[in-house]
C-alpha cells in the first residue's frame, strides 16, 4: 500500500517536470534562431510590442502589428525588424529594413502561423543593440501543413 502511494507520488512529480523539460528542449532552437538573426549579439527583451489576436481561427492569415519604441532620428533609429515563427517550416517569416525616413517604427502585415506558438519580433537598433518582443498565438486551423 505504502509502496503504491510512493510510486504514485513519484510519477506525479515526473509529470510535473515534463512541461519544464519541454521548455528546456525548445530553448536551444530558439536561441540558435536568434543567434542567426543577431549574428551572435545578445538580445534583450523589451521595447518591441507584438500585437496579434490571442485566438486566430485561421492560421493562413493572422493580422500582426509590430511597434518598436524608438524616436526614429538619424542618431537613434530602428534599422531592421525581423519576424520569427519558430514552429513554422521556415521560421524566418519576413525582415523589414527601416531608417530615420520612416518616422515611426511600426509595421502591420498578415502572416501564416503553422502551429500554436510564440511569434517573435527582433529589432536591430542603430546603436547595434537587439531587442525582442513576442506574442502567443493560438490558431485553430493551421497553415502550411495541409493543402
Amino acid at each position, binding site marked *: 500500500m505504502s509502496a503504491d502511494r510512493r510510486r504514485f507520488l513519484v510519477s506525479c512529480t515526473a509529470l510535473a517536470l515534463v512541461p519544464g523539460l519541454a521548455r528546456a528542449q525548445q530553448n536551444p532552437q530558439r536561441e540558435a534562431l536568434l543567434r542567426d538573426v543577431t549574428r551572435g549579439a545578445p538580445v534583450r527583451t523589451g521595447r518591441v510590442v507584438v500585437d496579434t489576436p490571442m485566438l486566430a481561427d485561421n492560421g493562413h492569415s493572422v493580422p500582426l502589428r509590430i511597434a518598436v519604441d524608438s524616436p526614429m532620428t538619424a542618431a537613434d533609429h530602428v534599422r531592421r525588424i525581423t519576424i520569427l515563427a519558430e514552429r513554422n517550416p*521556415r521560421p524566418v517569416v*519576413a525582415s523589414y529594413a527601416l*531608417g530615420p*525616413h520612416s518616422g515611426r517604427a511600426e509595421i502591420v502585415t*498578415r502572416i501564416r502561423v503553422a502551429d500554436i506558438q510564440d511569434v517573435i519580433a527582433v529589432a536591430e537598433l542603430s546603436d547595434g543593440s537587439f531587442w525582442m518582443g513576442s506574442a502567443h498565438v493560438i490558431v485553430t486551423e493551421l497553415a*502550411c501543413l495541409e493543402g
Partner: protein
Amino acid sequence: MLARVQVPAQARRGDIVTVRIAIQHPMETGYRPDNFGRRIAKNVINTLTCRYNGVEVFRAEMGSGVSANPQLQFYVRAESSGEMVFDWVDDSGQRGSERAPITVTA
C-alpha cells in the same frame, strides 16, 4: 500582378504618413500539392522596396510565412513633393511596380 497602394495625396512637411500596399499574389509556400498531388513550387514575393524621390525608405524581405495576397502597412516621413515608387519581384522573376504621387506643403 494587381496591386493597390494607399498614400495620402497631401501632407505637411515633417508629417508621418501611413503607407499601405496590397498585392495580388498566391505566395506559394512550396508545401501545397496541386490537383494531381504534385508539389507546387515555392513562389513568393521575396523583395519589396519603396523609394521616395529616389531614396529607398523601406525594404521588405519576405518568405513563405507571409500570407497570400500580402498586405503591408508602414510609415514614411513626408519631406518634399514628389512620388513614391514601389517595386517588387517574386521567386519566378516576375516584377511589379506601382507609384503614388504626394504633395508636401510647408
